[in-house]
């Protein structure tokens, strides 16, 4: 007994005298836990002339401003399923993709197939066929994150064996209408598409480039939280670009204690077909009460075309409930 105690004393002293040292070691241990689940990707793509994105919130990775991509790039990806699914930042697949290779930490190269992409979240799913199951990271609870939580951005863009590790805090939650969280960990090409982990080494998000306006070196980085991209995975498994839902109404995003007032309704949209009219007040979506226009926008942003939702609205003094199937954004 005494022996154990002494040993503990010894180890304790040697390890954690300085708070900072404990912090560094915690970072290194967390990075160790996730390092095999972050893989390097080699993408060969022919760049296409970027289109200008005309709206800030509709940042199109294929046409986003002045980030210039080379024909061949080395980036990071995150294993999300042992059977061979790898998630990455869709910006990395900009252009006409000729070939994507996954390099496992062992040095093994696997040819990957590009499955679905979601341009709202800038995520893309790849599939490889591997004889051995791929190492899946442990998932953290990203809904419990608080501003100030420590996060590490882990990437493999520079070296497929050892990860690059950067430390930051959660700067804000629910950015870009609830699509991503914000961190001051340096999110750079070194780690986008990799993993954002907490102190325990559990993945709480995937770092992505959301806006080229903020640059890559501003202390402002974004990551799609785990609970959001987990929900997206079934949609991403189908090849092609995920079609965002389109209700076909416009509203202001401010506080709405009376319900969200509809300003316009797009002809032939899901909203019009369901009988919604300008001047109606939306009260709940799928049973969730709307406190502001932003709430409605957040809910709609997480839906894909074809999903059904239940709405309650108030017209005059009457309250109605309808069920409608969300449509697709019309081409225009």
């Amino acid at each position, binding site marked *: 007994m005494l022996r154990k105690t002494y040993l503990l004393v010894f180890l304790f002293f040697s390890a954690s005298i300085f708070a900072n040292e404990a912090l560094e070691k915690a970072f290194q241990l967390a990075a160790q836990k996730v390092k095999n689940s972050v893989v390097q990707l080699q993408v060969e793509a022919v760049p296409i002339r970027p289109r200008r994105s005309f709206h800030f919130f509709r940042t199109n990775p294929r046409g986003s401003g002045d980030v210039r991509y080379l024909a061949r790039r080395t980036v990071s990806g995150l294993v999300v399923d042992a059977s061979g699914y790898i998630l990455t930042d869709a910006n990395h697949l900009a252009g006409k993709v000729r070939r994507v290779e996954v390099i496992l930490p062992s040095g093994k190269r696997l040819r990957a197939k590009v499955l679905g992409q979601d341009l709202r979240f800038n995520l893309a799913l790849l599939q490889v066929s591997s004889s051995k199951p791929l190492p899946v990271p442990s998932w953290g609870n990203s809904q419990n994150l608080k501003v100030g939580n420590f996060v590490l951005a882990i990437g493999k863009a520079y070296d497929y064996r050892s990860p690059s*590790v950067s430390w930051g805090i959660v700067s804000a939650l629910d950015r870009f209408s609830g699509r991503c969280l914000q961190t001051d960990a340096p999110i750079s090409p070194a780690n986008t598409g990799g993993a954002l982990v907490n102190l325990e080494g559990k993945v709480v998000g995937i770092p992505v480039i959301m806006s080229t306006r903020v640059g890559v070196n501003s202390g402002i980085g974004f990551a799609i939280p785990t609970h959001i991209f987990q929900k997206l995975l079934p949609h991403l498994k189908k090849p092609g670009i995920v079609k965002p839902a389109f209700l076909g109404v416009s509203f202001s995003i401010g506080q709405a204690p009376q319900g969200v007032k509809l300003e316009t309704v797009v002809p032939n949209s899901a909203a019009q077909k369901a009988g919604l009219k300008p001047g109606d007040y939306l009260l709940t979506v799928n049973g969730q009460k709307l406190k502001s226009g932003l709430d409605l926008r957040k809910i709609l942003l997480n839906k894909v075309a074809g999903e059904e939702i239940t709405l309650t609205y108030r017209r005059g003094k009457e309250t109605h409930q309808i069920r409608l199937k969300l449509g697709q954004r019309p081409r225009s």
Partner: protein
Amino acid sequence: MKRVWFSWFSFLFCFFVSPLLAQGRFPLDLEYTAAVERVSRSFVSIYVLPEGQKSLILDRNTIYGAGVIIDRNGLILTCSRLVEKSRHTIYVFPTTGERFQAKILGINRQYGVALLKVAASNLTPISFADSRKVLAGKLSLKFGNAFQTSKDFTPSVSVGTVSGVVRFPSLGPLLRTDAAVNQGDFGGPLTDSKGRLLGILLPIWVSSRTNTYVSYAVPSHTLQKLLVDLKSGYLGILMTVEETKRGGALIEEVDPAGPAAKAGILRGDIIVEFGGVSIESTAELVRALRKYMAGDRVQILLRRRGELFRTYVILSRRK
């Protein structure tokens, strides 16, 4: 059983971390301010001014950067990009308020590191950390002269993680850091959170002059290896390495622009004594040479066609 363990653990935890936390004090503040204080004593700002400029008016064209004192007798490490320009005067400003003119002792072009010497005898050198043990995720402090924003020669300090240790072809390992390294920070020290030198910041691979969260530093264990060469003076001779002792070191080739040529040393001469130390082999001469720095005046005893000559050579810096 488990409970005993836990109680021990919590006892110790309370004992060491919590005194600070219990008083509501932030433990990292103490450690970082202490490290900054320590490194500041060894930090220097470096300004390279055109020859003849008397006043220290700093404009857009002034070359500026940082460096670190590694020896109390005035040895300063910095990056070579800063000091390479000829016909310029190098000024070194420690945080004590003194100012020195520096001369270049040696430059290593492979890594881009330079060693400077100033006439001082009472400087505070930085202590070296063992950079071989560095793992990704280590917290580091950068000390520099970013945008010459500091007019009183105190350093600009940033914190960041060592995001990885990289090997480039033809170079040894370099440390990659995400601390904010900008123009003027080059040559400055990257330290650990205790204020020990991890590396010297490099301006290479920086396309713009502002920070991109990817900067590189020459690690301290490489620096220590480089220092041996950087410190030793240049003689300007070429010898074949001989294992057998032949009663001296045979000179195979003489650099016509080197100090040896100036001292009248010819090809085929044999050095038998160097600075009062008798030389039996090439290896011994190399060892003896390492004790001298550029600018040192050394007495040499030569044997030429059986006759002994005595001459002096003033060692120059390595190019």
